[in-house]
């Protein structure tokens, strides 16, 4: 089963530290010069204030991920219990955005893409955009940045073993109701 990160809306104070930590975790230059270097601010988790609740929304690493199913260049794959976008393959067709029921996909100007050569840049000033989503901060020391930074400890990293434990405990509790 895929690992995923999810936030508890009961704990969320809407501070957006998660958005900032996420954005910082995914740039390879220093955040100190990010303004000067005009690096786009592109978090993969989005803090949403809705009518009855405020909570962060991010990828659920679906088992039968619609995004992976629809990508025409097979650029979204299953790897190491995660759903990963291979950004270098992304053509920006945006089908994954339409397919995702969670709203986890963002389209952004990606630093790497800016350096990519495209015939398109001959005919237009528009910079190509690519799809990004929560990648569980793969390769980051300390794991997911949002889980680490949240002052309310609202995020949890859920792995197969955690689900097993939760289910086991619930089942034990259920047996007491049968006696």
């Amino acid at each position, binding site marked *: 089963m895929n690992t995923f990160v999810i936030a508890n809306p009961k704990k969320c*104070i*809407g501070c*957006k530290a998660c*958005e900032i930590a996420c954005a910082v975790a995914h740039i390879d230059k220093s955040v100190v010069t990010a303004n000067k270097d005009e690096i786009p*601010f592109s*978090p993969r988790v989005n803090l949403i204030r809705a009518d009855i609740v*405020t909570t962060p929304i991010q990828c659920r690493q679906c088992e039968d991920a619609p995004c992976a199913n629809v990508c025409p260049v097979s650029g979204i794959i299953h790897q190491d219990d995660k759903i990963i976008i291979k950004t270098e393959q992304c053509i920006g067709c945006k089908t994954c955005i339409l397919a995702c029921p969670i709203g986890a996909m963002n389209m952004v100007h990606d630093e790497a893409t800016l350096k990519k050569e495209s015939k398109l840049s001959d005919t237009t000033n528009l910079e190509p955009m690519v799809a990004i989503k929560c990648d569980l901060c793969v390769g980051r020391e300390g794991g997911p940045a949002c889980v680490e930074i949240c*002052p*309310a400890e609202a995020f949890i990293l859920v792995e197969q073993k955690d689900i097993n434990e939760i289910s086991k405990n619930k089942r034990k509790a259920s047996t007491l109701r049968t006696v």
Partner: protein
Amino acid sequence: MSGLGTAFGSGAMTNSIDEIDLMDEKDAIFAIGTNTTECHPIIGLKLLQAKDRGTKLVVADPRKTDLAMHADVWLRQKPGTDVALLNAMINVILNENLADNEFINTRTENFEQMKETVLKYTPEYSEKITKVPAEKIREAARIIAKSNNTASYYTMGITQHTTGVDNVLSVANLAMVTGNLGKPKAGVNPLRGQNNVQGACDMGALPNVYPGYQAVTDPAIKEKFEKAWNKPLSDKVGLTIPSVLNEIMKDNVKVLYVFGENPVRSDPDVTHVKHCLEHLDCLIVQDIFLTETAELADVVLPGASFAEKDGTFSGTDRRVQRVRKAVEPIGNSMPDWLILSKLISSMGYPSDYKSPEEIFNEIRTVTPSYAGITYGRIENEVISWPCPTEDHKGTPILHIGKFSRGLGKFSAIEHRDPAEMPDKEYPLMLTTGRVVAHYHTGTMTRRCWGLNGTHPEESIEINPVDAAKLNIEDGDEVSVTTRRGSLITKAQVTTRVPEGLTFITFHFTENPGNILTNSAADPITQTPEYKVCSVNVKKLDFSDFGCQKRKIFKKETQNAV
């Protein structure tokens, strides 16, 4: 501060922040006029954690803030009706015999006068004024009265009104009626908005006091400071900011020295502010960035940020804490104390401090409430003033046993409407405030990649019913106009504001909220009524102006900041 000064004898937060962590299901929190999770996120977090442990949360706010969404009881009062709401809650408590009679009898005065006024404010009567259902008022009042301890928290939501002092006195009344003072997990707790505004007030940055709230008009105090500073001193109360502006226009104030403040963006009716500042003979501005106010200055003195200087900050619960220099000031910028010291010297008065600690030790010699605090002690100890001697542990909770003024004073307060109410020309109400990402005029936060990234542009909150009537959809460009001025921004159609109310911040240079606000103020404190004025919102048709859509919001603006 003025309200609490009248009621209790001391204007500061009565209790300490860390008491929130001790609250449980027998306690309650009453948060009125504070969007705590957004404007004081760490305190807001503690409030939600207390709620998680079973503490009851009662929130009074016209907007559906995150705190309101978490509340056990949310009172959605119309802006400017806090007195009617609070009086009704006291009315319920008295009628249902839930008052703390022992506290009232032994620790307060003027109860009968307050009671007589409050008799009229039945929940049904107040419902007409506040629009809060009578049953909700009863529910809230019962929770607050029946809990073992109820702590009240408030901020600008109730103070930035022409009735600001009245609102605070009413919160004090409620706390006294329920005996929630002079003990832990209770109290009346204004949450200060800047990291060191408490410190600034403590040091006498108010026009009527010396450090430690010692009155300038008191002859004995005057003599003490004249001896300490070896100079004759005035015995007249000085000017508040609104008065300064008036006196500038009358040519009585010719030079203004502004430091760490951006009045061209943070004062109400900024068109008027700019006009006044341009009238000065000389404007000196000391700041860490070139703010809009600094741009008007004749002289700009570059100050140093928190990371570039040593000193102390005094927090909202009177705790004095060290701030320590981590990096050298950039270029020829200097810590504020050094700039002031050099300025004083060049004016012919000897000023030769070697360090902020030396200054602090001098402060201790003339300020009884700080006298026992030393840099050495606060390395390891948590000390809240008053702390009169070096072996005194400090005072986390005020008014234990007796109030600073002796007995707590009830005040009889009647409801008064705000200065400017909606009318035909300006049919909606506008209230102003903050968002979590930005700090005040955005001088620092709009230069932060992360913070500005999460909230890069302004929008005006408008209720779906009002938006529909104006043919405005979420994201549409709108013009927002009041009697003072107008701005263009995007509409954010949301139920966070009730019908009839709109909300905007004052964080954005391109859409400065205070170009709209009213300078009408509380008569005692002169705090402006930022929270209420009347406004006209119109869907923007760019063909009216012949200019290009959206260009002013793009990258050019980011570079300009």
